[in-house]
């Protein structure tokens, strides 16, 4: 029995530690907020990430800013992005922007283009839908 105890005790400790980590880190493991999650928050200076799809037809480019809507299945949020967006930035593509939530708009200064799991040879074949919606 001692032989097995030496194995089971550390295994138990590791499993409990891992479970504790997972439960407590779950919220930080989430990389970005959806538009709905953002709207549920109060305005603050806290640095957040917002992820979603660039609403086609909503992009307005100015000198140093780009203004557009980011949507998920439920709702959309206005983003005021300062800086040059990445090369792949376009209408209908997924983005993750970093910045602060003012309560009305999301003011970002960093943008990552999020490629989704769709792969197509022809641009026409892209079905341009938000895949995250199919779950809910």
């Amino acid at each position, binding site marked *: 029995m001692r032989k097995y105890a030496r194995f089971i005790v550390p295994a138990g400790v590791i499993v409990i530690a891992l479970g504790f980590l997972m439960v407590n880190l779950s919220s930080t493991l989430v990389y970005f907020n959806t538009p709905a999650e953002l709207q549920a928050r109060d305005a603050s200076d806290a640095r957040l990430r917002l992820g979603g799809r660039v609403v086609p037809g909503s992009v307005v480019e100015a000198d140093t800013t780009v203004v557009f809507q980011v949507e998920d299945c439920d709702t959309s949020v206005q983003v005021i992005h300062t800086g040059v967006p990445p090369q792949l930035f376009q209408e209908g593509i997924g983005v993750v922007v970093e910045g602060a939530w003012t309560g009305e708009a999301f003011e970002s200064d960093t*943008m990552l283009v999020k490629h989704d*799991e769709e792969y*197509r*040879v022809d641009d026409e074949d*892209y079905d341009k839908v938000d895949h995250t919606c199919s779950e809910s």
Partner: protein
Amino acid sequence: MTTLERNPSSVWPWIVMAVAGLVTFVAAMSVSPDAVQGQLSRIMYVHVPSAWLAYLSFGVTMFASAMYLWKRDLAWDRRAHSSAEIGVFFTGLAISLGMIWGKSTWGVWWTWDARLTLTAIMFFVYLGYLALRRTTDDLDARAKRAAVMGVLAVIQVPLVHFSVIWWQTLHQPPSIIKPEGPDMDPSMVVTLLISVLSFTVMYAAMMYKRIDLARIEDAVLIAEQTNTGPAAGEAVVAPDLSGGS
């Protein structure tokens, strides 16, 4: 036990690896690129099979480790070790290629999303497994320590794989294995399957070679430990201090 039943210098595993690599290369270069990502999408045909081999390797390490704990046969320990080493290599390859892809697609080399972070942890934990194996020259103690870790560490494989589904990550979820069916052009699906299959064959050939090497390493260790000859070997003669004429 330490005799070599197989010819360790056999050439065919090398040929198998070369052919598998060539098949992947030709397949990846001949398929049409993705419309949005362009040529960059070809990285997928090495990145995805590398990640698959990492999962497979660590799964085999877990199985072989459990078999060692049950049978106490060092042959299982060598299999576990060989597989873990190959797994670490392919985890590193998947991370490196992913970084190149990420720099061009996302705009950053690295970011701390769940998939990337957990993959990095998995990489270092299995490096730790390889380091643990060097803490002793006692073959049985080494095998036992490594086997316990080899079984426990496998928990990371499902964590890494399902991280993109359980948490919102920057990394995209799986394209092919999903409930609604593949979300990928059929030509790309076929190419990806060819590359995954080629890499799996490559893994088998690498395992064959690495296990042969592990057997030689163990034989050398045992020979060293059972050596009863002069400490410095036959080449060194104790100096004659008697004076003489």
